[in-house]
């Protein structure tokens, strides 16, 4: 059963065509990693999937519901999707616990006690049960990102979208976040992950998608796309990423 299906998705900003016909499916329980150079449209793709950007044309289905249908209740549809941003985007004026409960209460209508119980479970899951009373500003970047993951999980999404979740972190904090994501994958969460962490993609992804200039250039199992890419553009990109000091 496919959890997400993207059909011929196009997105233009004015005359700039950023996505030029993307077809992609993520089956339930799968992890798909999207890699590609800066400006290739990876963030735009994720943002179109949860309609933070309105696609110019094409369709997005989640659990068989077409999100791009003009009649669909977009707020209801978004509840199926959890989004984790590069810049965390925690609510700085609320405690960690409140960050995780507010949407449960205001959107799902859960009572306070239930919302807090679920929040504590999810904070436990990301290893931050002891930070419930802290404010985001008092946490490290890695801890903030894990709170953001817990906040998304608390809404019981059927799909999690990650947009370079570790790119804004100091190198020594990347590991904790990736550990949480690895665990999520093992638990069977469906995930669409934009990342530059090749080791993570290789180890965790079921499939890797290489994007360049708004199209999918190559996709397949990680061993193939990262290990022995067929396309010239993929090879060039990976050479630069895996060996940054190399000059070709």
């Amino acid at each position, binding site marked *: 059963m496919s959890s997400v299906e993207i059909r011929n998705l196009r997105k233009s900003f004015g005359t700039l065509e950023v996505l030029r016909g993307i077809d992609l499916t993520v089956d339930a329980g799968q992890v798909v990693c999207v890699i590609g150079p800066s400006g290739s449209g990876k963030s735009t793709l994720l943002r179109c999937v949860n309609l933070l950007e309105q696609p110019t044309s094409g369709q997005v289905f989640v659990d068989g519901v077409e999100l791009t249908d003009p009649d669909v209740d977009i707020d209801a549809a*978004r509840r199926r999707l959890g989004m984790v941003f590069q810049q965390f985007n*925690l609510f700085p004026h609320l405690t960690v616990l409140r960050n995780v409960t507010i949407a449960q209460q205001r959107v799902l209508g859960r009572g306070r006690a239930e919302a807090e119980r679920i929040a504590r479970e999810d904070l436990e899951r990301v290893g931050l049960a002891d930070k419930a009373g802290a404010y985001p500003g008092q946490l490290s970047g890695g801890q903030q990102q894990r709170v953001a993951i817990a906040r998304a999980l608390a809404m019981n999404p059927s799909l999690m979208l990650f947009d370079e979740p570790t790119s804004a972190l100091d190198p020594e904090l990347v590991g904790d976040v990736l550990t949480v994501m690895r665990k999520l994958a093992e638990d069977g969460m469906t995930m669409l992950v934009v990342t530059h962490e090749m080791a993570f993609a290789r180890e965790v992804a079921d499939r890797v998608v290489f994007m360049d200039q708004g199209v999918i250039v190559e996709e397949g199992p990680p061993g193939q796309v990262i290990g022995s890419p067929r396309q010239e553009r993929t090879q060039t990109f990976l050479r630069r990423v895996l060996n940054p000091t190399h000059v070709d």
Partner: protein
Amino acid sequence: MNGEPSTALPRTGGLSPRRRRQISRLVQYVLLVAIVVVVALLADWAAIQRSFLNLDVAREGLPELFTVALRNTVIYTACGYAVGFVLGLGLALMRLSPVGPYRWIATVYIEVFRGLPALVIFLMIGSLPLAFPDLVFPFGVYGMATAGLGLVSAAYMAESFRAGVQAVPKGQMEAARSLGMPHMRAMTSIILPQAIRIVIPPLTNELVLLLKDSSLVLFFGVTSGQVELAKFGNDQASTFANPTPIVATGLVYLLLTIPLGYLARRLEARKGGHRP
């Protein structure tokens, strides 16, 4: 100090730049002291005291200066501020709305009411009963004052709120929307609580301005029970043919405005401090 060429240049002969500055400053001090002394000698202190600091006249105004005039000033200001706050917030949300007509209405309102002197707005409100003899303002002068002060301050507060909302990073709205919150819900639950913290200093300044504008209520022709500080001072001054009550009134205003202004600056300074 002034008109001195670049002090970094080495001087050939004469005084060093530093010495010249010292002399210049000394001359300024001497001049200042001389002016103060001359004014002090020329002034008729007895007359000044009799006219402006006449304790006997000042005592005549007590306790009404506080129990009536100050009380009414605070009531007019507080009611006007409350209306301005709510109306201003609504206007700011309209101004930021994706719906064109809302934006236009809010823009026109804000431009008009910021462009008019508060006095003109008060004169208009005061003249409404002339145009519509059947029109009765609820709560009489209190209602008119609340309307006048509210209409004026709403335009300024709307702009403050708008700036506050726009100062909240875009990612906050996106995070709230991606959790399934509708636009309005995200605005009220996530964006406005952050925006209000940002606009507390300018809104405190607005309170100071409104407190001073509340003196315009005197144009509504108030009764002795509805009188606020400025009119009270003016009336007393004519009764006793002595300006001391106006000085007393001024002091009461300063008693309110200086601490509020200080508070606004403190809040402003703190804002840069520990917010992420």
